[in-house]
């Protein structure tokens, strides 16, 4: 077995030192009736070469960015990742290390997290960011729980436009806590309708996704007003982090917690995971934050360095009184995102976001011409709802024939819109591809 060094001679010598007659004897502590007395029924081992063939075949069984034009986003976005990102993430000093408990021998990971925390503060307009959470959905859930701890309240108001899967996860996390989940409605322009009527003195927070799952850019100041008037927090959830390259920092518009999904920052779609949940808040709430935090300190010789800190919030110290149960998080994804943001810088990120926006506006025009309609007039970023002339299924079928994964069928999530798709255009969606998509979705019904 190439992953295990032991030779039979090694084993003999080790048993002699231990004073055990056999390896079998080492398992004497396992009661006989609990022993498995047969070989596991899993396939026989294969050589690396044969395994590679098998895995390549499995991979070939999936449509992907290399095989299709791509207009499907809805929480996981098709973006280009500079090669330098994976080159760094492939450094085994990073990917084969554990959580940096032993600071003196983990400074590479620790300084990276410190840099990431700083970048997220800049993007969100808030004071503190944690290292990471599992994904955007659990980040939204953790934010709601955090707001409940901060406010000692148990009612969570969710403005319209939260990713349906995020809403599901928030619901899951709230079970057993006697919490109440209230969903807002949608305004005709596609943005969230006013939540003011839903917010009461028991409300811990208003959760709003920016931009909305349906695309529109939400009016944060109004939502903040509604929340703050009743002493609730505003939780802004960002599923398409690239939007932060262009939108005003939510922290400047009243958000108390900004969290979401940073997969767009150089992390492969990877069939949805690993992704990268992030969460930032105001300094005042730092002790209620979930997740790891890295802080700067000094060493015995007064030299600056970094350590995991404020661990008294965490499970390994606080156990049942911890702010969260999270332990292993998404460290390597955080590294990738930090490298990605360092490569793009403020201008690169802003220009890339602008290209995404421009492509979306171009696509809207083409789609209208092709006979589709756009139900929601509110301004959007790189994703929007398209109503198709016939059925969403038929339209997606035509797109597929034209070589494109054309978007998300909204029927399961928002049947009220009618036959509609959520379409996303990033820097990968080239003009010609957009033209082909429009033609296929319109089904030749050009006006």
């Amino acid at each position, binding site marked *: 077995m190439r*992953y*295990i*060094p*032991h030779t039979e001679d090694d084993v003999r*010598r080790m048993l002699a*030192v231990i004073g055990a007659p056999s390896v079998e004897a080492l398992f004497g*502590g396992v009661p006989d009736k609990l022993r*498995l007395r047969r070989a596991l*029924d*899993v396939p026989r081992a294969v050589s690396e070469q044969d*395994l590679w063939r098998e895995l390549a075949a499995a*991979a070939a069984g*999936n*449509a*992907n*960015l290399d095989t299709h034009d791509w207009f499907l986003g809805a*929480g996981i976005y098709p973006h*280009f990742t500079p090669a*330098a990102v994976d080159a760094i993430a492939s*450094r085994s000093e*990073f*990917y*084969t*290390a*554990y959580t940096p*408990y032993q*600071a*003196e*021998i983990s400074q590479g990971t620790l300084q990276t997290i*410190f*840099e990431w925390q700083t*970048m997220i503060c*800049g993007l969100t307009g808030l004071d503190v960011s944690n290292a990471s959470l*599992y994904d955007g959905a659990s980040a939204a859930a953790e934010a709601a729980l955090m707001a409940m701890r901060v406010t000692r309240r148990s009612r969570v108001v969710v403005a319209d436009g939260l990713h349906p899967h995020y809403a599901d996860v928030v*619901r899951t*996390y709230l*079970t*057993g*806590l006697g919490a109440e989940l209230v969903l807002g409605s949608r305004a005709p322009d596609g943005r969230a309708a006013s939540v003011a009527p839903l917010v009461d003195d028991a409300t811990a927070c208003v959760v709003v996704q920016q931009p909305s799952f349906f695309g529109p850019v939400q009016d944060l100041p109004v939502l903040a007003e509604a929340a703050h008037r009743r002493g609730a927090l505003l939780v802004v959830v960002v599923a398409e982090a690239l939007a932060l390259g262009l*939108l005003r920092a939510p922290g400047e518009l009243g958000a108390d917690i900004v969290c979401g999904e940073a997969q767009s920052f150089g992390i492969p779609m990877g069939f*949805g*995971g690993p992704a990268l949940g992030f969460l930032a808040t105001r300094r005042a709430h730092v002790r209620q934050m979930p997740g790891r935090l890295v802080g700067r300190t000094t*060493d015995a010789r007064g*030299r600056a360095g*970094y350590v995991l*800190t404020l661990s008294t919030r965490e*499970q390994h110290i606080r156990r049942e009184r911890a702010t969260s*149960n*999270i*332990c*292993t998080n*998404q460290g*390597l*994804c*955080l590294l990738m995102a930090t490298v990605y943001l360092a*490569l793009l810088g*403020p201008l690169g990120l*802003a220009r890339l976001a*602008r*290209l995404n926006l421009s492509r979306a506006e171009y696509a809207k025009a083409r789609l209208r011409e092709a006979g589709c309609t756009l139900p929601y007039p509110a301004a959007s970023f790189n994703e929007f709802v398209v109503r198709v002339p016939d059925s969403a299924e038929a339209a997606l079928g035509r797109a597929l024939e034209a070589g494109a994964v054309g978007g998300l069928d909204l029927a399961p999530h928002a049947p009220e819109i009618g036959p509609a798709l959520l379409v996303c255009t990033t820097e990968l969606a080239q003009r010609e591809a957009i033209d082909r998509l429009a033609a296929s979705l319109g089904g030749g019904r050009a006006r």
Partner: protein
Amino acid sequence: MSRPDTGPEDVGYATRGLAWEEPPIFERSRPGRTGFAVPAADVPEVEPAEHLGPDAVRRGIPDLPELSEVEVVRHFTRLSTWNASVDLGLYPLGSCTMKYNPKLNEAAARLPGFARSHPLQPAALAQGILGLIAELERHLAEVSGMDRVSLQPAAGAQGELAGIMMIRAYHEQRGERRLRVLIPDTAHGTNPASAALNGYEVQAVPSGPDGILHPEAVAEAMGPDVAALMITNPNTLGLFEEHVARICEIVHGEGGLVYGDGANLNALLGIARPGDFGIDVMHFNLHKTFSTPHGGGGPGAGPVGVKNVLAPYLPVPVVRRLEESEGTGFALDYEFPHSIGRLHAGFGNVGMFVRAFAYLRSLGPDGLRRCAEMAVLNANYLLARLRRAYPPAYDRPVMHECVVSDRGLEGTGVTTMDVAKRLIDYGFHPPTIYFPLIVHGAIMIEPTESESLEGLDRFVEAMLAVAREARDDPERVRGAPHRTRHGRLDETRAARQPVLRWQPEPPA
């Protein structure tokens, strides 16, 4: 500012050498630099401020640095040189199973069909991945003796949460409101944290003088209001909970369920199966037992396995092999009225599934068993060689890891922390320390099966050298590490005046 290059050079794997320096990346930033080329616009450019309104758009992005590609690459390459890692040496963090992460798995996870596919693409266009998920679920069920597995939880702790939630759903389904969850005092922190996160009251159960859980203790704590007992087997002392079957009977006897923390499954591969102990639900740590890399703190994957009684409550979506009637291939099912719902926006950390699957296929039944055998052999070998200098917390045969106390250091003024830091000077990442909490100055060592006999001997020599130094030259140990770029870092100071983000030095 020179420190002595201390310690016998022939012990361990490290001496001193050139170390690269690098400031926070923001201090390398210069306005106007970039490491990225934005594609030329092939469509009319939209002016964001006009499109969204001036108040909605930002004027700039503070705290993003400006560097060329070469500077970014150098920055992170240098940072990487400050890390210890499995690829550089023994990383015996107890309870973390820092085994070798095969390179093939890294390459496989990067295949475009896996890395560049989307969770919401039609199932018909994702048969390769769905098939792999279904197969991996089946293999994990067989390895653990559970009936069904969901890969969705993103890490062990989320697997625990999923398990606890299924237990709650199960009881509520029966119209029962149970309030307490019993957890041994040796349990990992995530256990109580997960139970509490789902609203349960946590009650600690003391382990016996022999370091394992006794039926009496469980029986005494057990009651009709107890939803579940969470048990880790082997436990965090590396001891097999030999009464586990009886304990499960006791809990079941009062209508409770038993949660199994599978973080230590590496010790049992092909040897014994939690499902056969009476465990109702458990999680796996693919990033421990199944060799997916830890990534400096994740991503991991914490699949949850259940017996059929809990199957109705599994998280959705569920990957299902189609019936003959439906054709061939795999589909996604959402129709589970009793499901606890979703835990992840997608399917979990799919990239880790690919790696774990590759690992399972590389090992097969014999290889899996060999892992457990050699992991246990290694732990027992270490204990045998260390026991005189570092007496074990509980003197019983261990499984995949061993826990020693700081008794051997008594009178030296040297602490477990000092020993850990001193080990760094010899080129070893320290073991887990001060856990489990019930062991005084615990040093928890898990070598895994990846370690060779010579590697273990080197580690033992280093541990013994430190023990000698603790007597002969305690200052040297208390002052460790000496060979690293940084001396010991002040964690208290970090917590007292938290500096959690970079800020420009105020111009002097």
